[in-house]
């Protein structure tokens, strides 16, 4: 069976270029102090990629520790309820720590070890990347400091406690909008100060080159597995692949191996929040314009003066005014499209998946589920939608209870 599978297209593998650019997006708008470290990091990544032992170690941990490959699951009851296209879920929620973030954290932490860096810093929004980082640092015996906006600390308490249990220090960030954007600023300031000793374990496929490249390369395991699994199951590729987009790591991870399959639609789902007014959503590609944030030229939610504006989403992991440069490029070239899903719609997706499939999804992933339900309703059983179920929803129970008016 395997030999009849088509291979992912090689042409789409050649970006970014040597300047870290995806078309005009990406690059390194970084303080000079970090430039030598970014170049060292890029070289270390290239060297690691060429070392079979590095790949073997990632593969071993993926199989024995993370539980890969994660299953591909057909959500038949959900599909039947909607009565349209067949919905398949890539079950990243079943990965150790409960989300796709572990794929990236393991790869970068092993890279840090290769580089001889023992102090790891990370930023986190929903806490999933923070938990993944704390987990891997416990596993590999590395020091871990996680920057987290104090607003996010408030709404993701279980993950904060998890990180502390795992031995990480969680540093609250109280400036700016007190969310992911500001946690990244603070982590960058730490890195600028401690660059010789410290590895910045960046959580999403955004920021300064080479992070969009490294994170994407480590997350494409999702799409490679899913592409093979769905072909083995159906003997065909899906009609559409969908994923939630905050910074964009789970989406690029599942999109990238399908980028060369011209007939497969790639659809990113952004956080529409309360609606389209500035400040009430985090739909960066839908409503933003070209700009430079956190060292990368991409699309940014900003005012006319280039000040980054505050965002809102029910899900902390999507509450970010930027997006990875590869998504800006996929949007610009028309290869992928991006649509908003509101808080209320995401909550609908969350509940539907709970009730029909017995799966409690993360609120981030619920955005993709909600859009897949809308999309599937207008289609027939011949259409296949593959959804990246990027994380599980245990961390969100308090938020969902509050939205539903339930006191825990």
């Amino acid at each position, binding site marked *: 069976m395997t030999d009849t599978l088509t291979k992912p297209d090689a042409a789409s593998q050649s970006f970014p270029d040597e*300047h870290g650019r995806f078309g005009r997006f990406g690059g390194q708008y970084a303080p000079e102090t970090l430039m030598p470290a970014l170049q060292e990091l890029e070289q270390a990544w290239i060297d690691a990629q060429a070392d079979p032992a590095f790949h073997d170690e990632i593969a071993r941990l993926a199989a024995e520790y993370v539980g890969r490959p994660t299953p591909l699951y057909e959500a038949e009851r959900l599909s039947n309820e909607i009565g349209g296209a067949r919905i398949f879920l890539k079950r990243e929620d079943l990965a150790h720590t409960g989300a796709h973030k572990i794929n990236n954290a393991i790869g970068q932490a092993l890279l840090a070890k290769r580089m001889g860096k023992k102090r790891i810093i990370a930023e986190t929004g929903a806490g999933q990347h923070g938990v993944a980082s704390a987990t891997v640092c416990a596993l590999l015996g590395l020091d871990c400091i996680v920057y987290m906006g104090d607003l996010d600390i408030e709404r993701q308490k279980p993950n904060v406690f998890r990180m502390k249990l795992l031995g990480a220090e969680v540093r609250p960030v109280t400036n700016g909008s007190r969310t992911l954007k500001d946690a990244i600023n603070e982590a960058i300031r730490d890195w600028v100060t401690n660059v010789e000793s410290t590895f910045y374990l960046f959580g999403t496929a955004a920021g300064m080159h080479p992070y969009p490249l490294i994170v994407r390369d480590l997350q494409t395991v999702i799409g490679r597995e899913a592409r093979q699994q769905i072909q083995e199951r159906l003997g065909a590729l899906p009609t559409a692949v969908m994923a939630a987009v905050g910074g964009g790591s789970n989406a690029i991870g599942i999109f990238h191996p399908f980028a060369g399959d011209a007939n497969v639609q790639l659809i990113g789902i952004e956080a529409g929040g309360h609606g389209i007014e500035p400040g009430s959503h985090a739909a960066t590609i839908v409503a933003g314009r070209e700009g430079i944030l956190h060292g990368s030229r991409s699309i940014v939610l900003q005012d006319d003066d280039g000040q980054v504006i505050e965002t809102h989403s029910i899900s902390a992991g999507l509450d970010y005014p930027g997006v990875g440069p590869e998504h800006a490029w996929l949007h610009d070239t028309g290869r992928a499209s991006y649509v908003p899903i509101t808080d209320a719609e995401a909550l609908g997706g969350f509940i539907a998946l709970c009730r029909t499939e017995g799966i409690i999804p993360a609120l981030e992933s619920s955005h993709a589920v909600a859009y897949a339900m809308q999309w599937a309703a207008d289609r027939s059983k011949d259409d296949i939608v593959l959804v990246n179920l990027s994380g599980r929803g245990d961390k969100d129970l308090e938020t969902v209870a509050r939205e539903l008016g339930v006191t825990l």
Partner: protein
Amino acid sequence: MTATKSSTNAIADAFAAAAAENRAALMPYLTAGYPTAERFAELLEALVAAGANLVEVGIPFSDPLADGATVQHTSQIALEQGMTLQKAFDLIREFRRRGGSVPIVFMGYTNPFFQYGLDRLAAEAVDAGVDGFIIPDLPLEESEEFAVPLRERGRDLIFLVSPTSTDARIEGVAKKATGFIYCVSLTGVTGARDRLWEGIGAYMQRIRAHTDLPLAIGFGISTPQHVAQAASMADGVIVASAMLNAIAAAPESEQVAVATSFISAMKTATYRNGQQD
């Protein structure tokens, strides 16, 4: 090596004038619109009267990732009061109209400049009287897009080097730099410090080997002793957070007087060999 390609020459002239007095040029930093637009204008004139040779004017940005707590705070206050890049240009235009002649260098992050439009930025800089730009998130590799329109209008794009810069990177900066080179004094973000980094002498020699351009030391310069030490190894000294902290701590009615005495003390320390006219 060409000494300077600054076509306005205002920045080069300011360093040369200080050098002729055997001292380092003194370059204080103010955040545009802090504590208010009106008080900023008063402070700017007061600093010049107290002996500033150039003034660095910070353009507030929502995400100042190379700045420590002080400049984060002043930027936020300025933004809350509606400061913009255009209003900062207008403040400098008014400073020039009232006879202010020292070079003004804007320090700000890429995005507000990028959104303003780089050709428009260069043209407005000429019109308002802004001589150069320091952009801490614009390394050599990304600089050409910004440098070209500024160069065409005779504005200097000021490059930064840092203690982590390799010799090859310093050489690359030296080839492209005009005006002066901003030598970041430490590995870290802006903000007041207790002492200067012990490696700073060798670091400055390493930079000097690659360029004849004026070298200015900034980040963490907080006391007259720091200024004296920096003046012994550089052509210019930049003072920011320590002065802003002093201004912030003073009652509103005394802010101008506090800034004046702060800069006067710093100016005395810029003279080498303890000389002063």
